[in-house]
């Protein structure tokens, strides 16, 4: 499996050669976008990193975790992932900040971090996507779109934690 991403990267370089795509331009344009995107996300990241820091220092984080732990225990979800599960559908940059702090606290290959990674890699900022797609619609009623995606994603969270338990 460790070959997968490197091989995909190499394939894209070969693809540039075969399809005669200007490689240097692709690199510099991409890196320019990367720079702008990082700068654009920076204020959101600080706001959320500060919130994470506040929640940990004040003890609110562990209070909330203890509150849901009986239900989460039943479903096989670690209570430490509560914040990520709440924040993930709301904010992409915010959940990245949380993921980073989970890695820093528990180690990247721990059960918690692997579960969090799978959750992050297999879910979306649902409220953002639904908002954008219904923006131009005359009929703004999103109907069952949000309940269905939230439900499906939550099943995904349970399965992600179960898979993480097998592979770690």
């Amino acid at each position, binding site marked *: *499996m*460790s070959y997968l*991403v490197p091989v*995909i*990267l190499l394939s*894209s*370089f070969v*693809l540039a050669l075969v399809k005669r795509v200007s490689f240097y331009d692709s690199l510099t344009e*991409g*890196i320019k*976008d*990367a*720079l702008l*995107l*990082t700068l654009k*996300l*920076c204020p959101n990241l*600080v*706001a*959320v*990193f500060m919130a*994470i*820091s*506040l*929640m940990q*220092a*004040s*003890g*609110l984080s562990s209070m909330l975790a203890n509150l849901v732990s009986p239900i989460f225990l039943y479903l096989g979800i670690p209570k430490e992932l509560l914040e990520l599960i709440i924040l993930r559908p*709301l*904010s992409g940059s915010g959940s*990245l*900040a949380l*993921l980073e*702090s989970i*890695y820093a606290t528990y180690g*990247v290959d721990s059960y918690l971090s*692997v579960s969090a*990674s799978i959750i992050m*890699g*297999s879910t*979306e900022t*649902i409220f953002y*996507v639904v908002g*954008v*797609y*219904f923006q*131009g619609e005359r*009929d703004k009623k999103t*109907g*069952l*779109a949000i309940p*269905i*995606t939230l439900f*499906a*994603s939550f099943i*995904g969270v349970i*399965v*992600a934690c179960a898979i993480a338990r097998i*592979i770690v």
Partner: protein
Amino acid sequence: MNLALLFIYIVCSVMIIIKAPDTLIPTLLQGSENTIKFLPVLFGSYCVFIPLIKILEKSKLDKSLAKLISPLNKALFPKEKKSAYAHLSLNLSTNLLGIGGASTPSGLKAMEEMTSKKNKIMLVVINSLSIQIIPTTVVAMRAAKGSAVDIILPSLLVTALTTVIGVVLVRVLVKE
């Protein structure tokens, strides 16, 4: 998001002031310090994968993939105009390749062209269930920390599962 964040800031500040007022400002500073530590990883990950996406776009790989998956689209979104299917195929293929920036415009055009409300909800549900093949940012963040455990295959499995659940639920529960 606005209210939730405000709630967290107020409740936590009160709790900290009761416990140890001197630690409030250092706690906030810790947040910005953590951001600065995290930025190189984020920037690095974007620098690797955004150029890759540029190459995929320029070599029209998304268009070839769109042709491949067009039969699937006719099954997922029945009875729509031909022009809607072109946008739908592009939306789905750019989503799979992780070209988020390119999938939104085609998705919005498909929303305009489609007439069935049920199909519109189907499109939004599929787009909200993150159907990309490789979660690039997470992969890069883990690689930066020297991770040995692969999460690509598990993520793909979970995404496939949630997408199937979403599609089935839209089919069964949403009325025309």
